[in-house]
């Protein structure tokens, strides 16, 4: 395990004490783990993960599967007796892991990439194109397994096939670019 000096990692410092009540207020009661519908599948339970955040074990946290199993149900956050914004912080952890290339789950990374690409191109989600991009980039083997469900959804009219657009200018390109500029300027 490697201990990160919080003073040398401003993103981590901001995560720990700049986003609602400081994570160091966590008293390790375990209500988050007990409330989490996914904790049994995690390598670090939520309580353990927040302890590692408190102590500064940034890489261990960012490389764990824990955040990628969070479905954003917000149960831990509304129950946290210290009022820490646990679920919102999970989103910040995902952002850090993705930005640092430390994502332990290729399926999850592929999901975010495919979704963002479709959103940027059309301004709205296109479910079939999203699933195709997602399965082809990160989950090829599983594509076959999805065929029966896909056919059944098509038959019920739940999904429709649309011709992908290869226009160079995406509908939200401008906004995506501007957001990146503003973030870079600070």
């Amino acid at each position, binding site marked *: 395990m490697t201990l990160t000096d919080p003073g040398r990692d401003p993103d981590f410092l901001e995560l720990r004490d700049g986003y609602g009540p400081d994570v160091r207020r966590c008293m390790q009661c375990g209500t988050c783990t007990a409330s989490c*519908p*996914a904790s049994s*599948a995690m390598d670090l339970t939520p309580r353990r993960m927040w302890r590692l955040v408190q102590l500064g074990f940034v890489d261990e946290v960012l490389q764990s599967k824990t955040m*990628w*199993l969070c*479905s*954003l*149900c*917000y*149960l831990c*956050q*509304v*129950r946290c007796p210290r009022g820490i914004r646990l*679920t*919102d912080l999970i*989103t*910040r952890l*995902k*952002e850090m892991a*993705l930005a640092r290339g430390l994502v332990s*789950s290729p*399926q*999850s990374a592929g*999901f*975010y990439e495919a*979704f*963002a690409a479709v*959103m940027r191109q059309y*301004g*709205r*989600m*296109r*479910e079939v194109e999203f*699933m195709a991009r*997602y399965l082809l980039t990160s989950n090829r083997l*599983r594509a076959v397994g999805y065929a029966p*469900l896909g056919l*059944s*959804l098509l038959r*019920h*009219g*739940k*999904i*429709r096939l649309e011709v992908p657009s290869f226009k160079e200018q995406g*509908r*939200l390109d*401008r*906004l*995506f*670019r*501007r*957001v*990146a500029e*503003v*973030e870079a300027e600070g």
Partner: protein
Amino acid sequence: MRYLFYPGCSAEGSALEYKTSTVAIFSALGVELQELQDWTCCGASVAAVKSGLLGLALPARSLALAEAAAPGEDLLVICSACYTNFRRTSAEAKDPAVLRQINRALEVEGLVYRNTVRARHVLDVLANDVGASVIGARVRRPLAGLTVAPYYGCQTVRPHSPFDDPQAPVSMVAIIEALGAAAHRHSHEALCCGTSLSITKPELGLKLVAAVLDAAGVAGCAATVCPMCHTNLDSYQRQVGQMLGHRVRLPIMHLTQLIGLAFGLSPRQLLLERHLVPVKPVLDRLETPIPHEG
């Protein structure tokens, strides 16, 4: 009563029947809905992971459009994930520094977000603006004989929702009873459907879906108020059955479809044929059965 209406991406695709039934029942209630022009994706659970500011700028884009289109009007939202993103954006933008960053980004769209518009969940509007008694008074075909398991899911009631208890919500009960049906209260009404885990981590996602279906199972159907919850509960029952080793077949209805049925709208108007789990058993269970063409 009048609302601006943000359907969200799912309601244009896999959950078209949710949008259709929402428009139909509000029309029957005499409540005017005006769809927001040029709306874009709320960012789902994805934009905020790509960047904190993107996760605020995307919802703010549609909120700013709403403020310009109809100042003072509430924005009706039918997807709980969109709803959470709009409420989260509004909460974060109370900090003037955050609002300033959002508006620096929105400049390129020629928009200004002032944080004046309120996003309202369709369940909130039905339960609190319209009210169960007005809904009950419009019923032409009571759903007597049907037991409905309410399913709120997560983001309908937490963390930014002001209209019901974040862990033990009750808003649907009075509405279900006003339709003439009985409510089956259960342990998983506000627990998670797994959202995108059904795609990224199917083994875990199916377990979460199975737990909800099991808790709701003795009812004639479950009622949802979010397209994601509906898709997860309706689409994976075959796989859940394989996992559990027994057949699982629980019709999942959008609450708006149940209201439409009780208002006397036809199954076709409510696009009931689009569900993967057939809803025929629901129609057959009624004391005055409804002929089903689909």
